[in-house]
């Protein structure tokens, strides 16, 4: 085996074993999915309880409309609220109603004003102004109530009117490229893409930062000079990236295997059928590790260059959010991608190397992009990785032997020229 390859693998093995044996690896392997599950669980529990135990007052001169609105509120899927209907025509009724909201005797008061020959107007009084979810529910209930009342007034039976107001559910199907048609669930597919994108960004950033932290630690422990007498800086950097990247892949593999075991269990099977059914394609199975490796190499080589120019971990922390900004940008583009996954912005972001891994997975959740776009994004990522590695390895080569002060921008330019 050539000497430089042997050294590179020795360094990768050392890096891999040190991280795998560390407590941080065990904690994050178990802790991250647990944290993720806890967040999702809390969100789900909160959504189940939303609207429950609420107490509303609906005040309207038209008792039929008031009752229609009440029925709509009581007919919602979530936990049912308590709804009182009152006639607001009594003198001082409006003041006493707002006092109810002020004293928190009720959660809110909906006052509906009817106008002859026109649409009614409505006001909602509550001691909490930020509850936009309740406002949206009340608005939906009022509109449905109006339609319901109008239909029954015009002779439609109550049952038919209720059915019309309830609306029609659209079953979604995905027509594949080979012409086959499968039942699809847009919501579940979105969440699948979202979870994969989060997994990709988290592991990429965590292991990229691990590389940076490891460089700073070695710089602080002054081990570089001992190593440089035997190993070329480029081999050291490559070994470090291979070692830390392998740790990331190992962790993902553990999660995938654990996930597969969980999915195969009867409980998970019961949960993941029906509307939550999620299917993973072969393309996703292949592209996930490809984008992980490319994303990891891109960010970790960037972090490695940054770390070589820093003196302490604290100093490094200051730059990290800046270097990780493209990841946050990717998630900020979710709405754009979900709205039209083939828009110019979506395609551009999926070709732009720092955002490509996450955006591609979000786009794949909506619709499989054409092969040339995958090829172009992978090619652009490889070129960028090469360019960043070129710069980072030069900064690394000089920076790891510079102690005592932080490098200024002109100094960094000179470092690039030295090597």
């Amino acid at each position, binding site marked *: 085996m050539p000497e430089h390859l042997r050294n590179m693998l020795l360094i990768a093995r050392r890096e891999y074993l*040190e991280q795998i044996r560390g407590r941080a690896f065990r904690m994050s392997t178990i802790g991250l999915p647990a944290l993720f599950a806890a967040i999702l669980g809390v969100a789900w529990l909160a959504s189940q309880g939303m609207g429950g135990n609420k107490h509303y007052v609906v005040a309207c001169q038209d008792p039929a409309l008031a009752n229609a609105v009440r029925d709509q509120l009581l007919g919602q899927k979530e936990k049912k609220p308590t709804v009182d209907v009152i006639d607001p025509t009594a003198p001082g009724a409006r003041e006493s109603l707002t006092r109810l909201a002020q004293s928190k005797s009720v959660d809110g008061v909906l006052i509906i004003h009817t106008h002859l020959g026109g649409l009614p107007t409505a006001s909602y009084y509550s001691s909490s102004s930020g509850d936009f979810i309740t406002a949206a529910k009340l608005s939906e209930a009022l509109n449905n109530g109006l339609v319901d009342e109008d239909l029954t007034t015009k002779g439609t039976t109550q049952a038919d009117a209720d059915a019309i107001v309830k609306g029609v559910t659209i079953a979604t199907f995905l027509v594949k490229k080979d012409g086959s048609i499968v039942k699809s669930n847009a919501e579940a597919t979105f969440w699948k893409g979202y979870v994969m994108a989060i997994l990709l960004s988290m592991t990429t950033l965590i292991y990229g930062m691990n590389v940076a932290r490891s460089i700073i630690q*070695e710089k602080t422990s002054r081990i570089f*000079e*001992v190593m*440089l*007498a*035997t*190993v070329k800086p480029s081999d050291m950097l490559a070994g470090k990236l291979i070692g830390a990247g392998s740790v990331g892949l190992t962790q993902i593999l553990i999660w995938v295997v654990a996930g597969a075991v969980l999915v195969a269990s009867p409980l998970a099977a019961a949960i993941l059928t029906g509307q939550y059914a999620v299917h993973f394609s072969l393309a996703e199975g292949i592209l996930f590790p490809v984008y992980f490796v490319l994303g990891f190499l891109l960010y970790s080589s960037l972090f490695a260059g940054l770390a070589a120019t820093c003196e302490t971990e604290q100093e490094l922390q200051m730059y990290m959010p800046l270097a990780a900004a493209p990841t946050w940008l990717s998630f900020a583009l979710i709405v754009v991608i979900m709205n039209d996954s083939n828009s110019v912005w979506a395609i551009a972001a999926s070709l732009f190397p720092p955002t490509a891994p996450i955006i591609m997975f979000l786009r794949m959740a909506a619709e499989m992009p054409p092969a040339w776009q995958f090829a172009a994004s992978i090619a652009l990522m490889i070129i960028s990785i090469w360019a960043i590695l070129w710069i980072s390895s030069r900064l690394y080569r000089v920076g790891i032997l510079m102690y005592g002060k932080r490098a200024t921008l002109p100094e960094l330019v000179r470092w690039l020229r030295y090597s």
Partner: protein
Amino acid sequence: MPVVQLAGVTKTYENKVAVRDLSLSIEAGQMFGLLGPNGAGKTSSIRMMMGITLPDSGRIELFEKPFARKSLERVGYLPEERGLYKKMKVLDQLIFFGELHGLADGDARKRATDWAARLDIAESLDKKTEELSKGMQQKIQFIGTVLHSPKLIVMDEPFSGLDPVNAVLLERTLLELKEEGSAILFSTHRMDQVEKLCDSICLINNGQAVLSGRMREIKSRYERNHVIVEFEGSADFLKSSEIAEAKNFSGHAEIRLKEHGDAQKLLHEAAAGARIYRFELVEPSLEEIFIRTVGGKADA
């Protein structure tokens, strides 16, 4: 056979010339001292020998061939800025260093165990580096340097931070390695150690070699104008016109004669007022030569 040879090597950083036109040669089985005040260019010279930095001009040869990284497999290097992986176990660390120098896992393990016994740290092999004292860590660093039986050992300030017992142990080990045929180069501020251990020296100041050659030959260049006198009685002879400088430690005087000062005349003057137990004309110490050569600039 020269193990390492530098010919007209120059290295400049920004506007500062770190090493200027430096030439030196070290033979197999030779102990070589690289001396100089702080910032003289010792570490820069050593780093170029190890291929960590490249010279701007000049030639560096290892084992009679132009510098190549492959040659570093036969070199052991202990830098001034020492470092070990803190979380790693000592034995694993030594095996790792051995493997980087081309040793097989089993061979590296055996050598590490033997060396640990030789330097009296066998019980530390299973401990993590961070659990050990600084002196112990220095011994481990030294083992990492010599584990692969290098033909050239380069050490930057190897004695700094060592207590007297371990310093003597290191001196003894270096002499053994020299006996086994290794060439050893080290930089230090400790003149007594250089005087005791080195066959040859190179004194550099402001990046330039100001004095180099075999120790004996260098010392012989300086006239024997130092006198040690042990006496009882009057110390008036210390005011003699033959003396340039004198230190009197109650009955023990160290004297530097003026240029062409007459030692015989001084002996007569001393004997006139005191009983003389010892009157010895000695060559200048290396420290004296060092200070004289680099002037008042040395802060060592």
